[in-house]
């Protein structure tokens, strides 16, 4: 089993709001995104089994791995001390990689954050979010522009 470890410049924050609500925020800049992207590709091609991500400024560690259970229909998360173990479905991994690739290609992302789908049956609580937030986002559309865009959809 190959375990990888990277350290990002930006922050990882884990917050709990009440017994059932929590949020894991992984905030990255473009340099972090490139590092993370390569590590995610290692997971994608099964060239690594666990990728641990730590922030230079905060104590939380996220350990990404690919879900090995073929019956699993959604990614899962568990927390052991400061370590948050995320077992990603292949399709969620691809979504994350795609988002990071766009960041790498354009130097910005179409939106400042994405949510990764995580099981509601998480031991952390029913309502939780894994959020990847970037520092650079493209100029958003105005409400009118989006309305026009979606008018005939």
């Amino acid at each position, binding site marked *: 089993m190959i375990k990888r470890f990277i350290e990002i410049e930006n922050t990882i924050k884990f917050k709990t*709001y009440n017994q059932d*609500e929590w*949020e894991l*925020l992984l905030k990255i800049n473009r340099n972090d995104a490139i590092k993370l992207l390569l590590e995610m590709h290692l997971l994608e091609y099964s060239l690594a089994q666990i990728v641990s991500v730590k922030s230079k400024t905060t104590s939380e560690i996220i350990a990404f791995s690919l879900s090995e259970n073929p019956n699993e*229909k959604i990614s899962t998360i568990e927390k052991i001390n400061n370590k948050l173990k995320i077992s990603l479905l292949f*399709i*969620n991994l*691809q*979504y994350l*990689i*795609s*988002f990071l690739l766009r960041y790498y290609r354009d130097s910005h*992302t*179409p*939106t*400042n*954050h*994405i949510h990764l*789908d995580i099981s*509601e049956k998480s031991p952390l609580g029913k*309502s939780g*979010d894994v*959020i990847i*937030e970037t520092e650079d*986002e*493209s100029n*958003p*559309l*105005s*409400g009118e*522009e*989006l*309305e026009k865009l*979606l008018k005939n*959809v």
Partner: protein
Amino acid sequence: MFTIKKQMLLFLSIMLCTISIINTMFAGHIETQQVLTPNGLIPIKDLKVGDLVISYNFNAKKPEDLFINTPIIKTQKNYADALYEIYIEDNRCISASPQQKFLVATQKDKDQESLTFRIEVIEAQYLTHSHMLLDSNLLTIPITQTHKKELYKVERRVKKYFWKSIKHVKRKTIFTRIDLYSIELQEPHNYLIPVFSQGIDCKDDKNIPLILMHNGLPALAAGISLAFGSTPASLSFAEASIAAGGVSLLAGPAGWAIGAAALGSYALYTLFDKGHKEQLFLEMSTDDTSDDSSKNQEPSEKNKDPKGNKNPPPPPPLGKKDRDKDPKYKNEQKSKEYPKDFKTNLTNDGKAIFKSEREARNLARNKIGHNPVDIGNNKLRSQDGKWQYRAKPKDITGEHAGGKHIHLEELNPDTGEVINNWHLFWEKND
């Protein structure tokens, strides 16, 4: 013991008080207020019994039945000594008497499912920022400001001179009452009024919202208004009635009669007041089991909007949770199974910033359409499975991602794959 003269004076003063209370309880609009009818916008003062106005049919089963023509069964003219000015965005203002009833939307649970509203009937005097008026598409319009305009208490100092020296000074109250017009309709007891922008010429005023009003004619019986709500005025009336009853014990046989009448009216008020609160609270519910709905509907040729469109836009998914309680809707939901949504490497994320929360929500509501299905985890799916609204409490409070937002997702209805994930942010709170 009171003399007959004193008893008569007491009787007259009680009657005057009652009449005064009844007058201030009158619901209505000023004469220039227009109402939407099949013939276009007509000033309320020109409407007569038997004329048709356009009403929103909450029991409609098809989009073409949403707007129905409803006959006026009673009109009334009265006057008020105060008006409430209800302001909405773009400096639009509605003037109405304090008792004029508005159909308003309030969020059922501010922390949880923010797209779920209940519809209530609230008098103008109790409207606040937390209420949202409803337009002809049942889209919410936030109230920006309310203002009570007193039409009396204009005091003038009158000085009377007698040989260049001041004899005495009087304070005089000038009552500048204004005429009010009210209409009473058959079911569903609502009508639409346009709200023009102040400071813009009517010709240049675009996107004029049509606001839903509840007909506000109080039912008067035997000179006693039974239409009292739990208003301070009605409470004063009740207290006054009890006091009159007490006074009558000291005032002899004539006083007993007055007291009995007053206490009787209070008993009637109390009796009718029990049901009144229920009447004032209308949960938005499309009760398909009700046979009355068919009675209220006019033939389909008449169900045209003022522009002549036969199919007005469908209303948004209001009262979703209420529909869930309806067994018929439950069955409908069970029969439809939607695939689980999932994002892929082909999913496009996008972001748009709206001027207000209302605009962002309106777009989401328009897309997810009528009767969306609650698929859990703070997600509502359109009936055709193509659009999905998603918002967790933290999205709406803006605790992450740099601002308050909701999600509107375009899905592949067959697979559940998210094609586009739009993040709808807004600049200001409504």
